[in-house]
């Protein structure tokens, strides 16, 4: 690559980085701390957006996401709080649009039953298997040693006794 074309490329990249984002996105403003009317309201907002899931970046909650839609939805939640809506009404508003998916604590119904009951079922199955294994093991009759095994045991015991004696003598 010639120095000249390299310069052109850098200018192009710079242009993309600096100018394009400004052009591309019609960004709405995030909630500023001073917009809250009280500490209690701020706290309520924080708790609400922490319990709501960002639909764009799915492993983040609404509080942590920087996606443009998350910013819009934070604004939406904020305005509903200002309008005196209850937490339930705010959750319903979002569920009506994006489904139970937006709730980190989805309601219990047929589509979410596996989600809620699943872990308990797994737990009960695991505990049952464990108990069954323990019972079987403790009730199993002890196997008598074979002739060779009891000889070996005697030899080890004698050796041990011998060693202890020797240590005591020293």
């Amino acid at each position, binding site marked *: 690559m010639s120095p000249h074309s390299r310069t052109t490329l850098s200018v192009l990249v710079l242009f993309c980085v600096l100018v394009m984002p400004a052009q*591309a996105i019609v960004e709405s403003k995030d909630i500023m701390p001073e917009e809250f009317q009280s500490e209690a309201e701020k706290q309520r907002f924080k708790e609400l957006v922490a319990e709501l899931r960002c639909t764009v970046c799915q492993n983040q909650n609404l509080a942590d996401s920087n996606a443009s*839609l998350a910013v*819009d939805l934070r604004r939406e939640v904020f305005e509903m709080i200002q309008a005196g809506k209850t937490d339930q009404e705010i959750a319903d508003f979002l569920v009506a*649009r994006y489904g139970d998916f937006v709730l980190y604590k989805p309601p219990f119904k047929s589509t979410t039953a596996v989600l809620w009951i699943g872990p308990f079922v797994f737990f009960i199955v695991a505990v049952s298997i464990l108990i069954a294994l323990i019972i079987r093991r403790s009730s199993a009759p002890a196997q008598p040693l074979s002739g060779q095994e009891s000889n070996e045991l005697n030899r080890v015991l004698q050796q041990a006794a011998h060693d202890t004696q020797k240590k005591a003598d020293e």
Partner: protein
Amino acid sequence: MTRTLIPLVLFAILVGFLYVGLNLKPREIPSPLIGKPAPEFDLPRLLDPQSRVASKDLLGKVTLVNAWASWCVSCRAEHQLLMELAKNQNTQIYGINYKDNRSDALRYLQRLGNPYVANGHDLNGRVGIDWGVIGTPETFVVDKQGTIRYKQIGPINADVWRTTIAPLLQQLEQEQG
């Protein structure tokens, strides 16, 4: 024999779950709006800001409502197909121009063609939220009564059109308005 089989069976189950997981599309969140009336909107038209396009304009015919933006790369990918549908299949496509600058959107349509009957200019994305738009492009199939019947998340491609949307439109055309 069973002792050696148990881990093998467990492993097979695990593989089964992971294999299914590979093919799931976490972006495709089922929309609660399917079967519900299309959310109301009343927006300035993109091409003519003085007049408006509203949800009542959708009534009485089967329509596609396509949420798009000029900054959206995958919208470009489906644009050619939308042009084709509007021209040859006589499909009524309404657009929600989502969080876009008017001038950018107009330039986009000028360059790539305009498949839309009308476009609502949803500058602040408020209508997009009401429609549960997560990311452009998304396309809704709305029946004659104005009920949402299907939602496509991501671009429509020839395959989705042929197997899902085209048959649905045909079926909806038969229904009473």
